[in-house]
């Protein structure tokens, strides 16, 4: 089914249509497995953010583990994980147990939540051949010592990976990777800008597929796809439609099924979202100049110029203020606050945000989802009612 289209990193393929690029991204985005002999070697990481540049500079491919989606049948993992744990932990374990991720050369998780930390233990017990670790990104980014600590932890990662590939990872290689990723993040920001300006031109499902495709290929290739997509989007004919403008929250870790985004888009325009927020976590270019320690630059960006999510505390970024900014910047009239079932950080934030929106008299809709859900009738009813309440009268 999946054709590995060779994409040269040089010029652009002028024969591609927008639908071609989309289909290519769709196929990539929906890939769940890692082939046994995949080259370059693959390092898997659990959401949200990961310093991919270090992996990239080691000549390996970072691979975001995004759960199993709603087509995966969980048969083995239920015996290993409590029933009160979110779906992404369960399906990721399932993919490990059923061999889908056998090709990975390493597994990293992070202290985003308690369940995610357990993933390192599960992986270590069940897949001893794959080195599995917690990359201890700090929950405190408000200390003068924070950058130094992140730097130390990144250096640890660097030496773990160097040992794995059998050679040092030179500063120059990391700088080169920073440039590739800077470009990638610029392109993603551009994509988001296009959708915000003209949501009829670029849907959220499409935006999502474009971004998600990047988690399955080297960033150089992804940059080519995104540049092509942006060029073709500019030429796309657009039919304006009248739908309420909303922002979507809740896609930072476990991924809502495509059907869910489609269901929402049937009735609303999603103008901004936190889907795969880790992919554009760093909000500005990272210094890649000679003379600057590239790992320090990467660590400093993590602490100083980054996005926010329910799984990180940052005194500079109160969650409610972040949402109000998002609504304002998106010129959105309402918010859809979702949380994955059993996601404690998501559920806690959902409540806090809804109280703020009540106070600000901003209409909002609260939804709960699971990546494995297959029935969307009830959700459609809620979304339609919400849109009806925004549009009618």
């Amino acid at each position, binding site marked *: 089914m999946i054709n590995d289209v060779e994409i040269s990193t040089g010029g652009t393929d002028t024969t591609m249509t927008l639908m071609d690029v989309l289909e290519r991204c769709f196929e990539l985005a929906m890939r769940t497995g890692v082939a046994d002999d995949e080259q370059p070697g693959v390092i898997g990481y659990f959401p949200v953010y990961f310093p991919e540049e270090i992996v990239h500079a080691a000549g390996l491919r970072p691979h975001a583990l995004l759960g199993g989606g709603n087509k995966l049948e969980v048969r083995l993992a239920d015996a290993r994980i409590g029933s009160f744990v979110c779906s992404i932990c369960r399906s990721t374990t399932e993919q490990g147990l059923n061999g889908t991720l056998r090709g990975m050369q390493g597994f990293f998780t992070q202290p985003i939540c308690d369940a995610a930390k357990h993933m390192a233990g599960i992986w270590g*017990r069940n897949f001893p051949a794959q080195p599995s670790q917690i990359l*201890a990104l700090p929950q405190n980014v408000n200390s003068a010592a924070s950058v130094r600590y992140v730097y130390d932890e990144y250096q640890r990662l660097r030496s773990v990976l160097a040992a794995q590939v059998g050679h040092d990872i030179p500063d120059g290689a990391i700088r080169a990777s920073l440039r590739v990723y800077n470009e990638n993040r610029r392109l993603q920001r551009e994509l988001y800008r296009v959708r915000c300006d003209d949501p009829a031109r670029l849907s959220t499902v499409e935006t999502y597929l474009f971004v998600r495709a990047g988690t399955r290929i080297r960033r150089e290739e992804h940059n080519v796809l995104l540049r092509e997509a942006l060029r073709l989007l500019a030429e796309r004919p657009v039919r304006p439609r009248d739908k309420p403008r909303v922002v979507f929250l809740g896609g930072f870790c476990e991924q809502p099924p495509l059907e869910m985004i489609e269901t929402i888009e049937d009735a609303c325009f999603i103008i901004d979202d936190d889907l795969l927020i880790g992919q554009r976590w760093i909000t500005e270019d990272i210094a890649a100049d000679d003379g600057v320690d590239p790992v320090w630059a990467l660590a400093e960006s993590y602490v100083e110029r980054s996005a926010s999510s329910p799984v990180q505390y940052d005194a500079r970024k109160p969650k409610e203020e972040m949402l109000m900014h998002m609504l304002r910047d998106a010129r959105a009239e309402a918010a859809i606050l979702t949380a994955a079932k059993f996601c404690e950080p998501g559920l806690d934030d959902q409540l806090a945000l809804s109280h703020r929106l009540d106070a600000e008299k901003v209409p909002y809709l609260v939804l709960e989802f699971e990546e494995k859900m297959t029935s969307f009738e009830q959700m459609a009813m809620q979304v339609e009612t919400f849109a009806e309440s925004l549009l009618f009268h």
Partner: protein
Amino acid sequence: MSVITEGLDARTTGQRLVNQWLASLGTARARGQPVAYVFVMGNAIEILRAFGFEMVFPEINSLQTGVRKAAPDFIAKAEDFGFSPDVCSYVKADVGLMLSNMQHPSGIRMPVPDLAIASSLCNVYIKWAEIWERRFGTPAFVLDIPGKRFAAWKSPVGSPQHLTDARWVEGQFRDLIARCEQITGKKFDSDRLAEVEAHVNEMIRLWIEILAFNQHRPAPYNSMLDGLTYMGVLNAWRGTPEGVEYMRLLHAEIAGKVARGEGRVPHERFRLVFSGTPCYVNMRRLIELFESHGGVFAASDYLTYAAGGLDSAGLFYDTSRPLESLAEVTTLASQMGLSNHFFSHHALAQQMKDFAADGIVYHGIKSCRTVATSMADNREYVTTRHGMPTLYIESDLIDPRYWSDAQIKNRVDAFFEVLEQRRNLQSIREC
């Protein structure tokens, strides 16, 4: 001022100490005493004590709502407020307390915090502190203490990795000290910190020995009943002369029992290791179910992590360099004890051996992913690799709605049938 009276037993002394602590919380505001909210894992109590803070343990407040049968009302208030049933029931009980004008069922009106420290050892702590931040306007002080990175993680004392992590923790302690100075208007007194640490050192020494006493057969106390009361006192009075005094009393009493061969269970038949957090609403009932079969919990990982990991580092404070040493010990305790839930298979197997236990009982908590996410996987590993009999039961910390008596009794009864059959087989083989 001390409630410690000559001639009283540890139990009475412990009760008095807890009551005294609670009473002083109730009057803290009136006395103009600064108040800190802290958790049992990763809390920097030593620094707070050096500044003279009164310490509120929201976890203890919440478990007490369970013990005092008020949890359902408190939880209902939080759910009415909008909290999901899937959220930690300690958090919900605490929200219930906030929505009840801070009137705790112990009779104490809990003071609001001047400072709240949430460590990263349980991520829910941080979300919890965010709730206080919204409610009381008290900024959260998030203390990031890096734990184990993987199961075989070794971070020997003084190794570069240990010092790297400790430097990070120390940096945050310095931030905390600045915050404390600002709140209390007092200058940090390093000698006072050393004094507190000296008390803690003595408590650590005694606690390690008390834990080891239960290696005797019969076990002198039940980790998951008596042990819980020890821990309440130990947490509330950590770093104080009263705490040391209590521990000495306790130590002497248990040593006496060991010498006399007195066991907690009259006819100890099975020695067990408990993994997980207690179900405080039904703990007596649960213990009764086990003790009726002659089963005693000789050891529990709970006594390590809920006691702040005191026993786990094997390291004492160097009072000649109190702050650096605090960071080093805190880091090590976090890596060797407090982040063990994520990789607990080795530690449990070790406890099985040390305590000559017959089996492990896993108690999965519906709303606590910190202890329970991978228990089933852990159990599978321990059972297959070490051939140990294990039992998995599930309920909640304090939410009685998740306690199903018939189901738990059924599982416990069946587990003891397994243990009996196994013992019979062993004795046949030995013949």
